[in-house]
């Protein structure tokens, strides 16, 4: 870049940094209206926009808001435990995104429309009430599915970090296509090596995945392993050692199990073979029964 352009860049960067954030767009608009030369006005507009959109000249560190999303058949008791852990060591805001009790039948039949609508409204309201906070989402089980659907359907809603555990999202889901999905180093998937529920969700229905047992096959997501079952993540030790560093500061602390985990059990491999595996087996059994006895 020419030294003259670089000088203009730095001059405008300095100009913006001396203006309160809520008045910056107004200031830019006034500057543009006062510029009579069309080419120069367009260049100025592009440069100011570039600086604003990249949060340059905005050195203030954003406050953090942690939003928690629970799974099925629960009233999210772990939300209170996590909130207590976070508030005892930081000034971050902690909000519980609840959608009420959701039973297994509706879960397997994919009757989640009203729950997704409710969760969408809750997230939008959080954004309205905390517009300058970085948004960090921690979701468990079916909450991971709702969170993924929400991010997919609301690409104007930026998320800064995501922590999944017990996830029932497709292991091959292409997060890269979502412009609002956080980038490398900002998404962790905590996997329970003894967690059978994601595999059961995948094999008893169509549309869910076993990422909570098998991990994601996507490089944007960091898979981290723990020797625990589906709800075994909710311990004070795990919160303090692994979750809080990531939720509050974006630090990923590796677990010992990640590099030292046992081989997957054979029956888990079979069950995770394809979506709806158990459904298909049941259907075949019903057809055989019908043919033999009716």
């Amino acid at each position, binding site marked *: *870049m020419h030294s003259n352009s670089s000088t203009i860049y730095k001059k405008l960067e300095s100009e913006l940094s001396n203006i309160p954030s809520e008045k910056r767009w107004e200031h830019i608009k006034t500057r543009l209206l006062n510029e009579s030369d069309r080419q120069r006005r367009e260049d100025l507009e592009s440069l100011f926009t570039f600086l604003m959109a990249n949060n340059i000249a905005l050195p203030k560190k954003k406050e953090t808001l942690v939003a928690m999303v629970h799974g099925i058949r629960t009233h999210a008791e772990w939300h209170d435990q996590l909130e207590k852990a976070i508030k005892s060591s930081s000034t971050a805001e902690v909000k519980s995104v609840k959608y009420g009790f959701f039973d297994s039948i509706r879960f397997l039949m994919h009757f989640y429309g009203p729950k997704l609508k409710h969760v969408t409204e809750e997230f939008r309201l959080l954004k*309205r009430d905390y517009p300058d906070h970085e948004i960090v989402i921690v979701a468990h089980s079916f909450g991971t599915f709702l969170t993924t659907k929400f991010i997919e359907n609301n690409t104007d809603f930026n998320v800064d970090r995501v922590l999944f555990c017990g996830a029932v999202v497709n292991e091959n889901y292409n997060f890269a*296509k979502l412009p609002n999905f956080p980038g490398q180093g900002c998404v962790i998937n905590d996997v329970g090596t003894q967690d059978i529920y994601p595999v059961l969700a995948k094999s008893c229905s169509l549309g869910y995945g076993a990422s909570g047992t098998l991990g994601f096959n996507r490089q944007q997501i960091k898979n981290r392993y723990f020797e625990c079952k589906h709800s075994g993540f909710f311990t004070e030790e795990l919160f303090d050692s692994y979750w809080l560093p990531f939720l509050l500061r974006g630090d990923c602390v590796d677990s010992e199990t990640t590099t030292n985990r046992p081989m997957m059990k054979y029956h888990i491999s079979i069950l995770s073979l394809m979506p709806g595996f158990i459904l298909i087996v049941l259907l075949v059994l019903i057809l055989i029964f019908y043919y033999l006895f009716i």
Partner: protein
Amino acid sequence: MRKVEYKMIDKLRVLYEESGSGTVARVYPVPFLLTKLDLVPSPATFDIIRTLEKRGFLKKVFRVESPALGGIADFSSLVDIPDEIDDFRTGLSLEVKSENIKVYYVIQQALVK
């Protein structure tokens, strides 16, 4: 155009095709676009983006967003944004402030193809 700008056009083409067809919109927030182009915010990066804009490969869009429920209207220039706008999502009139304005880039289809 410089070699680096040709390289960026190739990356834009890949990004455009990655987005696929259907419901995913080809509207990109600026930081996301820079990440996809392997660029960091700097005077040199601005130079590249501005060249791509001038050549018509990228188009800047200013989107006015409702406080709670997403985009209301798009404008090609900041000076075109009115002080007040009808928010069809809430049925109310919105006084446009800084926090309602978001900037996106659109990859121009014909040029990338």
